[in-house]
């Protein structure tokens, strides 16, 4: 579909695989994965990442903290939250912290596609 690099941050490997296969079905070839926030930051600093799919619920350093750190590196970072917790507080917080999208688990492929579309539109 397009030549973009995507980073998936989730402590659950199954979730990473599922999302990565979804993305592959959308013709995205460069998919990087990180199982924790520190790895994610390292990767984000080194590589040219276009979209980050970020889980909120992670051990030690949670998704909000990761979001904050990524936005410190790149204020215009395109970060999409992927979480099972769709409480309005989480949504509000994520959006206020600069997330570009919020996908609630379990999600349908369409949602991922919508996010990719949104990235291209901006």
């Amino acid at each position: 579909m397009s030549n973009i690099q995507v980073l998936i941050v989730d402590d659950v490997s199954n979730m990473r695989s599922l999302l990565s296969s979804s993305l592959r079905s959308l013709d995205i070839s460069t998919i990087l994965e990180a199982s924790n926030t520190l790895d994610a930051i390292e990767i984000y600093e080194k590589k040219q990442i276009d979209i980050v799919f970020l889980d909120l619920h992670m051990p030690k350093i949670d998704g909000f903290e990761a979001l904050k750190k990524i936005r410190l590196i790149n204020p215009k970072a395109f970060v999409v939250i992927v979480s099972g917790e769709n409480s309005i507080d989480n949504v509000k917080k994520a959006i206020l912290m600069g997330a570009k999208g919020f996908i609630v688990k379990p999600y349908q492929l369409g949602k991922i596609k919508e996010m990719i579309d949104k990235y291209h539109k901006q």
Partner: protein
Amino acid sequence: MRIRSLQNKIFILVVSLFIAVFVLNFYSIIKAAGKQAESLIEARLNVGKRIVLDEFRTEQSSFDSNVATIAQDWGFRQALGQGVDSRTLVNILQNHINRISGDFAFIFDTQNNLIASTLDLPQHSLERLQQTAIDPEHKDNMPLAIIDNTPFFLSSEIVEAPIEIGQIVVGKALHSSLFTRLEEQISLGITLISTSQNRNTGVFSTMPMLIEPTHDDTLNPFLSFSFINASGEGHTQKLDLYGAEYITVSLPLNIVNLNSSQNSFVIVLHDSLSQAMSIFDRFWIDILPFFFGGILVSLLGALAIARDITRPVKSLLEAAKYVANGHYSAKLQIKQSGELGQLAQEFQNMQSAVMARENEIKQQALALQESEKNKFEAEIAHKERLLAEEATQAKSQFLASMSHEIRTPLTSIIGFSETLQVKSMNPEEQVQAINTINRCGTHLLNVINDILDVSKIEAGKIEVEVMPTPIFPLLHEVKQLANMQAHNKGIDFELNLNFPLPLVIKSDPTRLKQILFNLINNAIKFTESGKVSLTVQHGTQTLQHETQTLFFIIQDTGIGMTEQQLEKLFSAFTQADSSITRQHGGTGLGLFICKQLSSLLGGHIQVKSQYKLGSEFKLSLPCPQDTEAKQVTNLSEAKRLSLLSEQAQLIPCLKGKVLYADDNDDNRRLVSYLIKQTGAQVITAENGEQAVELALANDYELVLMDMQMPVMDGIEATELLCSAGFSKPIIMMTANVDKDSIEQCKQSGAVGHFGKPVDTIKFHHLLTEYLPKSTANNHEPSLTDIDNFDDMAKQFLSSLPEKVEYLKTAYKIQDLVAIQDIVHQIKGSAGSFGYQKLSEQAAAFEKTIQEIKQEQNHEPFEFFLQQINHVIEGVE
């Protein structure tokens, strides 16, 4: 203070007692002394009297014998017998009386004729003299005669020569020397008084103060003085002489006053009382030191007694104070015998008894406290342990169930997805596997949603919002869903309405619907053949008191339940049998949720079941009979108000899911109805937050968002959704169709806006624009269906009087926000139900609301109320 007072009192009491006794004694002593003195004087007077009388008698008898000698004198007898002339006789007499120191002499013959006299006396004096001297009665009484204030002894003798020839009477003056001598002898004053008609005239007195001093020793007339009484001879009398008191005694002497026939004489012996009293004075002075000494002793004694009494009392009091303050150790310093000592002893006994008892009580209290505390702690510990056990049990049960509920579908998902990886599967098998995975995933989602519901219920986070709820549209909705599910399962669903039924009840429509959906869903799930029916009827039931109740009875011809199954029916995670889950699916939470929700709505659920024959669930909701609430008696009545029947043909056939967020119940119902008419599904939210949560978690083709909502309004929700990457169209539903509002809609990210009141045709156009078309004709309007729109319109009408009241109240308290809300609602919904004019009026009035306060002009408000009333009365 009280001690001092007690001491003073006792002191004063004792002192006064002492003094009283002393004074009484003193008084009686004085009295006795006075009496003694008086009797002494009296005795002296009596002695004096005797001596005086004896002396007088001696004088008298010596004088008598002298006179007798004269009477015996021969020469005298001869001269008298020879009858010599009186002159010679007088001379002879004179010689004789000179010899016996007589002063005068009279001679009477036997016929009592005066023969001769040495003194010239008037005739009457002579007769009295003769009587006194010769009267044999007076012989003993020592006759005295007073002649010209001079007292005389009188003596008479018979002269015989040889025969009786006459009588001689001789007088001898009482010389002052006699009285002086007597006075010396008896130490008493002697006074001779002549009394006449209570007038006393002193004749003679030895008392110097009574007598005018004279140069010779003759008797002198003295000053006259008052005399109370001359009688009572021999008795003592008090006599006041020139201011000095005397005690007197008068002597029984026969005294003849020869000067006057009226006068009598008294010889008075007297003694000065004051003289006697001077002894008294001395006595007084003698006795006075004793008196004062006595008083002093009494004072000291009183003081001693007072101290003796008050000191132990004081100690007692102090000890009592100590005891009162809780010090029992204070020992009493009373070493006394008698009552006070006893009292002190008893007090000490009491003190130690009290001390002992209090210690006992303290210990008992401590022990009691200790045991209570222990008991309490044990109880708490027990309860805590129980609670903890229960909680642990519940938790482990929950976890077990969770694990079971979640693992089961997951197993399928993982298993089937693994098989998918095996390339040998033919396409048909692959489709089947994918379908299974999809179904299991959906089930898993349902499980999780139910779990979330349960946790919300348990956390008390679910709140019911009781409002006037029209039951017919609700039932219609339920029926539509149930019909679909029953149809899929190949069984029948039946809705029985036992009229009359209330048009509107007070309940939470969302929750009621949830309960009914759940119960019917269950019934269909467990019924393989036959039918499921929902019967609605109105009646009474007696709990604490008779209440009007609306019954929803769901009957099925399913597998039924055994008694054991019934017992655990409403507990969380306890489906009758785990095999059932495999067979029928479900989370096992549905009935638990239903039960909790029904009790939140004030009702309850009863179950009857016969194993293998079927079950009956009966939901009872309180439905107080409101006299104004309309009762619908038949189906056709419910249908009559239908305005939409004609438009039914024009309804498009659509599919897909629509999320509709609106806080207004009327609007929610109406729009939901309009969406469902097309065959599309609708999910409703009551505020922006719910809308955001739902929109992100689900897949909707369209979101309809009311602009004004509590908690989070449509604009904010839309903004948030767009920020969160939500890409599906959002339409803003609003009654505000001014430019600013439309601009605001666009800014927020909404793709369009739709003006309220909802025009059905326009709305269906809108839906057609955003929703995919459906080929199935699944919305065929049925005449047997309850006409929802009709009911909704009716409900809108019936809610108007309430709104009027609310408006009036809000207007009265000038709650402009409340007025704005209501008017906005009316503006939004009135037109949708066909009351276009009212909607316009509301819109017009809404613009003037902000001016209400300043203008004090009630006309617009009154006019608006009038318009509402017109609609209510059916004028419009």
